[in-house]
Every structure is written in C-alpha cells, then in structure tokens.
C-alpha cells in the first residue's frame, strides 16, 4: 500500500507543522492568511460507524453477523465498533430515538404482500418512531412508486414494486444479510400438527391438534415431572423476556411477531397463506368504491365479548382505527385551528402501514362499522383489517398524556407507554398472570366465538378452540437451555426460534422433533441515513459491496439461511434481475470467501469521493 501516488494528508500536515516549528516564515500577516486558508483544507476526520446489535443470548446470529460485517468494513479502512445492546433497549434506541449509525437485526414486517415495503421505506415515515422507515431513507422515486403500487393492479403494480426493489438494492437503506431458517424444537405426542404451521402467527398455535394418547402417556412416564405434564397446558419456552413484562400491542420496542398479543387480541381478519385477507372477528365485509376510494362495511360476529365481560361492538373497532392514527385522539391538535393541525398527530408506531390506509372508521350500529380508505385498491385496503381490535372502554382514557411521577411527556400518550398488564382483549386466550422477566400464563377464553359454534372456513385450518386450556410461557436465558427444557419434557416448544448450533442437541434428544421453516423476516444491516456519511447513497452502496452474504450464510447461519437481494424474496414479486444466484446481482461482494479485496474497496470509496490517510478512510469535515 506504500506506493500510492497521492501523499496522505497527514504527511502534508507533518511538513506544515515542521515548518511552523522552524519558525521560518511566521513573520508576516500574509503568511498567516495563507496558513488559515491552507488549514481549512486540511480538516479531515476518520469515517467511523458504530454497529448496535443484540447480544448472543438474545439472538443466535445478530452479533456474529455484526462482527463479520465490522471486520469487512475495517478491512476497507472504516473505524467500526460493535456494541451489544439488550433487545428492548436496542429497539428503543434504533426505532424510537433513532440513536444509531447502523444496526444488525431483523425486519419484522410480514412482507408477503409488496405493500409491506410502504411503511418500511416511504420517506413520509422518516421522522416517525417505530418500524416505519427507521432508516430515515428518502428517495422520491421510491416514494412515488410505493404510492403507485397501492392504486395499480396487475402488471402495472408488479412493475412499480420491481422499480422499488431495484432502487433499494442500489441505494441500500439496509444491506440484506439473509432470510434465516426458523429452527424449533417441539415435543412429540402431546400435541400434533407442529410441522407446517406458521409459528409467527397466533393462528399457527390455534391450529394445533390433540396428540395421540399413547404418545402422551409415554411422555408422562418418561419424565418425572408429572404435574407440569398436564395435557391441558401448552408449555412454551422463550429466550425473550419482553412478553412477560409488557403486553401492549402498540409498543414497538416490546413486540416482535405479536404471537402472544395475537392470542390475546383478535383482528377483524387474518392474512391467508394464499394471499388476501379472510374474516375472523368479522362475519362478512363488503367493499365498494366511492369517489375512487374503497369503502368497506364490516359486519361483526354476533355476541362478541371482551375478557372482562363487556360486549365488543363496532364502536371498539372505530376507536381502534382512530387510536392507531393518533394515539392522543386529537388531544395534541385540539384548540389549534391551523391548516396543518393534522401534522401534530402521533401515530401508533406499529401497524403504521395499515393505519395509513384508513381515512376514518365509523360505527353505523353496534355490529356494523364503515371504514373509509385512502386512495388504494380494495386488495391493499383489506390489509388494514388485520390490526388488533382494542376495547374502547379501556383505551379511550389512555389517550391522555404519558406521565412519569407526575411529569408529562407531552408528545406521546399513555397508550404507547403503558405496559398493558393485565390486558383486556377479546382473543381466544385471556391473561391469567405474569412474573415479569420470568413467566406468562394465559387461560382459554371460553366465551370466544371459536368456542360455541365455530364457523367453517376460518383461515389456517383453525376449526375451534385448540385442545389446550392454558398457555404457559417460561423465559430462559439461552437457546441451549430452551432446547434442553424441551428435551427434558419441561416444555413443548421453543416459542422463539433457536440458532443452528443447537440442532445436534435437538437431534440427540428422544421424543423431540426438529421443525425448520423459512422465515419471512430477513436479517439486515440497517443504516441511519440521517447521519453523514450514511446520508450518501453511494457510500451505502459501497458498504453493500462489503457484506459477503454467502460467507455469512455458510459461517454464521451454518447454511440455515438464504441470501437474497430483495426484502420481498420468497414472493413472486421479485423481478428476475434481482434474483440472488451466486452473488448479489447489484452489489456483489468485493472479494471472495469472506476475504475483502482491499484495493477494490478503496477504489470504490475513492470513486465515491472519499480519501485514505495511512490506510484509514477519511472524509472532509
């Protein structure tokens, strides 16, 4: 590297300092002027990127991905630090305070439908907290195409989404790492139907069947812990403390898949495996188009109740949509009479893509709600029906200002900061008790509509309440412990996915099955495009070239993952030119087999307008 023609700035600085020390030319004012002019040009500083990620206990892969990526960035001359941060705190820093340069984590969005990209990347969400555009990404072309795909159909919609994916692959608001395989250990015999269910949806658990008797008796004799072997209890062991501490479906820093809050709270409909949305809490709905915008009349099932016995009515549904679009229910804008009063509304940080589809919702009678949508197609609009429905009589008062010890934290409301324990939902399971950080117990809700006369044609093969009466969730600290709990008969399923490193242990354990399914939530290196030099798409593009997805999948994921070039990979919405064949089609790795080609990386950064000083990447202040 020593034979580069351009003298590093530090050498020039040294010479200058040397001449100053000699005191040879300091005598004149003209010289001072020249010195000031010259030093203005000398001001460079090293480019540093801090990567925040989850500790190994909380996530089997994230930290190792971050370490590998940090190594590649360092090889290219960046100053990189990797900081493990506890999950709740990481998501608070990344999603709510935007206090990060880069993070390694997973995008939780369920992206089967391309509209999932809308909240993730539209610049209008750049300043909102939560999983909507945490990157602060702004690209007018992407914005336009995201809006277009909401109103277009057929080939035009596919083309709009393909354009979005191509722009994202080039400008890298995040570098995709891989879609992981979700690995789980399940106990044989007690319950059936583990294979092929969707563990990231409450419907997956609701569609479990009773296990065959012989098998469950065999399990009972094989373990000495008879009382906890009660067949009426589904015992899940998880490595994430958060669901035992907070059950607020709106809290972005506490929710991951929302399976447990999904058991507690129903939605009007559920996304079906085949695409489209199927009725759940709703009996039926009818869409019509008024002034070019969809409008839906949703009829609720008869005799719905909340867990506290109050009836569930259309007013609850209307309140839910009002609260999702403004958690203060207009408090922050009350009294102001300006044209921009809506700007002050604070939207709930989850379900934002879906709540942004809804213009307003109105209860027509106790069982009918009319939902008016913004400009979009009925197919896209139906996604808005999958948000959890909240009880008016509990949540309306939570629109008041959030306060801690009497001090108001103005902008937000109690709805976002409450831990919502105990929760009042309408779902098939009701809260029984919790020990924060340790345990959560849910009990079957026998007044649920699934109990009496379960309707036919429910999504995901659900045909009534499941065979268990209780869901008992225990928290442990590591994947190994979670798997050993299932192996020893103390748990039925690892409720959170475990790392590939535990597969041998699962394989060795008798009566334990390995379930592997592909997750729709990819690992990414997310960049904060609000901070220089990450503001620069060319800089991010070069970083994208420094992530060797193949090496990560082989070394970190032990092959249990899939590299991809688009967050929609796995759907039929990916254009052929964005398929990940042997390498990333847009930002292929600079180097091979996990070794960076340093010269190629330096050339790319110089091309992007950066310089090197003694091997360190520097930028002008």
């Amino acid at each position, binding site marked *: 590297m020593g034979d580069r023609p351009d003298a590093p700035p530090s050498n020039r600085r040294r010479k200058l300092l040397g001449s100053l020390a000699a005191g040879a030319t300091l005598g004149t004012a003209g010289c001072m002027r020249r010195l000031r002019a010259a030093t203005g040009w000398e001001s460079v500083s090293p480019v540093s990127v801090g990567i925040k990620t989850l500790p190994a206990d909380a996530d089997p892969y994230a*930290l190792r991905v971050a370490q*590998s990526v940090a190594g590649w960035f360092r090889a290219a001359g960046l100053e990189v630090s990797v900081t*493990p941060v506890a999950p709740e705190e990481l998501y608070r820093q990344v999603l709510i305070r935007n206090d990060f340069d880069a993070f390694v984590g997973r995008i939780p969005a369920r992206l089967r439908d391309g509209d999932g990209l809308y909240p993730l990347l539209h610049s209008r969400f750049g300043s909102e907290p939560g999983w909507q555009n945490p990157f602060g990404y702004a690209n007018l072309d992407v914005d336009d195409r995201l809006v277009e795909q909401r109103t277009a159909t057929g080939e035009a919609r596919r083309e709009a989404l393909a354009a979005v994916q191509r722009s994202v692959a080039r400008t890298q608001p995040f570098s995709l790492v891989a879609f992981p395989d979700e690995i789980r250990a399940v106990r044989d015999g007690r319950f059936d139907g583990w294979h092929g269910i969707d563990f990231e949806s409450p419907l997956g658990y609701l569609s479990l069947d009773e296990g065959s008797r012989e098998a469950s008796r065999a399990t009972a004799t094989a373990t000495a812990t008879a009382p906890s072997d009660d067949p009426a209890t589904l015992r899940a062991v998880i490595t994430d403390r958060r669901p035992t501490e907070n059950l607020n479906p709106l809290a972005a820093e506490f929710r991951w898949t929302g399976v447990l809050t999904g058991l507690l709270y129903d939605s009007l409909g559920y996304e079906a495996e085949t695409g489209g949305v199927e009725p759940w809490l709703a009996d039926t709905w009818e869409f019509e188009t008024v002034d070019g915008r969809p409008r839906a009349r949703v009829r609720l099932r008869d005799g719905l109740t909340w867990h506290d016995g109050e009836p569930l009515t259309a007013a609850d549904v209307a309140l839910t949509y009002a609260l999702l679009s403004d958690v203060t229910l207009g408090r922050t804008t009350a009294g102001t009479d300006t044209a921009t009063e809506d700007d002050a509304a604070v939207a709930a940080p989850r379900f934002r893509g879906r709540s942004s589809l809804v213009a307003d919702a109105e209860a027509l009678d106790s069982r009918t709600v009319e939902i008016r949508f913004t400009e979009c197609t009925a197919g896209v609009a139906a996604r808005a029906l999958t948000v959890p429905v909240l009880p008016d009589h509990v949540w309306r008062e939570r629109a008041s200002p959030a306060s801690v010890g009497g001090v108001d934290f103005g902008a937000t409301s109690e709805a976002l900061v409450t831990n919502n324990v105990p929760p009042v939902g309408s779902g098939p399971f009701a809260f029984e008790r919790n020990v924060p*950080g340790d345990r959560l117990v849910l009990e079957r809700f026998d007044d649920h509509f699934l109990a009496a006369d379960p309707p036919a044609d429910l999504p995901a093969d659900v045909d009534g309440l499941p065979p268990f009466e209780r869901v008992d969730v225990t928290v*442990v*600290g*590591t994947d190994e412990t979670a798997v050993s709990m299932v192996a020893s008969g*103390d748990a039925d399923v690892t409720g959170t996915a475990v790392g590939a490193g535990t597969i041998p242990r699962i394989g060795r354990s008798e009566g334990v099955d390995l379930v592997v399914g592909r997750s729709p939530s990819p690992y990414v290196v997310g960049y904060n495009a609000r901070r220089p030099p990450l503001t620069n798409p060319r800089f991010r593009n070069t970083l994208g070239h420094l992530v060797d997805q193949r090496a990560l999948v082989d070394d970190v994921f032990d092959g249990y993952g899939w590299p991809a070039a688009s967050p929609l990979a796995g759907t039929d919405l990916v254009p052929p030119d964005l398929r990940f064949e042997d390498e990333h089609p847009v930002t292929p790795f600079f180097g091979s087999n996990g070794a960076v080609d340093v010269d190629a990386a330096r050339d790319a950064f110089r091309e992007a307008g950066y310089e090197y000083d003694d091997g360190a990447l520097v930028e002008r202040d």
Partner: protein
Amino acid sequence: MGLATVLAQVAAGVVALHLLGLVAVVGRDGLAGAPGRVRANLRAVAPTLGLLVVVLAVNGVVRDVGVELSWLIGVNITGAIHALEGGFVAWVQSLATPPLTTYFSAVYVFGYAFLLTFPVVAYLACRSDRPVRTLLVAYAVNYALGLVCYVLFVSYGPRNVTPEAVDSLLYAHWPQAQLLTGRVNRNTNVFPSLHTSLSVTVALVAYRYREVYPRWTPVAAALAGSIAVSTMYLGIHWATDVVAGAALAAVAVAVGLRVTAPAGESADPVDGADPADGATGRWTDRVADWIRE
C-alpha cells in the same frame, strides 16, 4: 420444573461437601462443644447477619431496577474491555478439554456455593466471633459495591460479544445451569466478577484466620483460584472483570477487618496477613470508621 431439579442437585451437592468439610476441616476436636459456640456466636453476629440480609434483599430488589437504570445512566464499557484485553478469554478457551470443562462447570456452580456457605458454618463453630463477622461484613461490602458498579457500567461478557471465538461452555455442557445462574445474574452484569470477588474474599479471610482452621486455607485458596479461572474458561467473564473482582475483594476484606477489629487495635496498621496494602488501607480506614459510627 427444571429450576427445581437444578436447585435440588446443587443443594444436595453442597450439603455433601459441607459434611465432608466439617469432618476434614473442622475435625472431631473442633466439633466437640460446637452447638454451644454456634449459639453464642450467632447472638454476637446477629446484627452483622442482619446487615447482610438487608444488603441481599436490597440487592434482589434493586438489581432488576438497576438494570433498567443502568441502561439510562450507565456507560456501556463492553467495547472498551474487549479492546483492552482482546482475545485473552478466547486463548483460555483454546486450552479446553472435556474433563476441564466438567471440572470448571462443577467448580463454578457447586464449588462456588460451597465456598461461600461453608466458612460461615465453620467459623460459627469456632471460639471467636471475629472471623465470621469479618466474612459477613465483607460479603455485604462486595454486594453493595458490586451493585453500584452494575448500575454505573453496562457490560456483556465475552460469550455475548465474541461468540465466534468464545463458547458459552457452561451452558453448552449443562444447559439447565442457566436456569439457576439466570436467576442470580443478569447478562449485562459482568463488571466486576462477583464470583471472583466473593471467592477471593473467602480465601483472604481464610488466610487471615489461618490459625483457626489450618487445613481450610489451602482448600479455600485452590477453590477461589479455580473459580476465578472458571469464570473466564466458561466464557462468562473477561479477565478485566476478574482483576476488578479481586480488587473489590481486597477492599471488602479490609473493610471487614477494620469494622470487626476490637476497639483497642482499630488504628493499628494492618498486620502482615492483611491483604490490603497501604493506599487501600488508608482509604478503607475512613470507610471503616464511617461504618462504625
């Protein structure tokens, strides 16, 4: 449940070690007339025991709050420690063999529980109440200062920072152990190592009162050394945590000795057996005086 099983295993193991210890360390002569001495000593140390119980109770309550508080006001020093010592723990682990893993796992869980509880029992049975009081005060100081550090510093252990180089050998070897250690420790509380500080505390007190049970001193020293190494070998602590833990132990024992010194000899410089050196001694004098007032 899994936790109950682990607890029962550890309790059974520790009780067995206690019986062995009573026979081998205290001996038949030492046990003669022991019940009477235990009663007398218990009365004498009741206030100190109360202090320890209070500190432990506060510790138990504040630790959860402390973790939250720590994320608010604490400094995340994980990266600094990693930069300071680099791959030392990974090097320690490169020497791993299955028998060593079994040994260090057992020492970390069983040996530690035994090392902390046995001297309390043994010293209660001896003639003077000073050893047991010293020990209990030192325990309380360990927990109190440890808690302060845990609030001020956020730090993850090596298995959570460099998982590609450092295995969490304990949990891979014996996953259920995590049910127990997870109760006792949060994974952000690694600086300093309380396993090390409390073990070294026992060893230092054992050395200071080596005339009481001569056979206990080498056992305590060997166990304390093994436990300090095990925290690194198992990938739970950094070497930095271990060094800081040993320093904390020195402070705690110095305070313990000062607080329990008979009134007449309080201002005397510490004798040769005392672990604290000059600087620590002067500083701890003031702490001890303050505690005594």
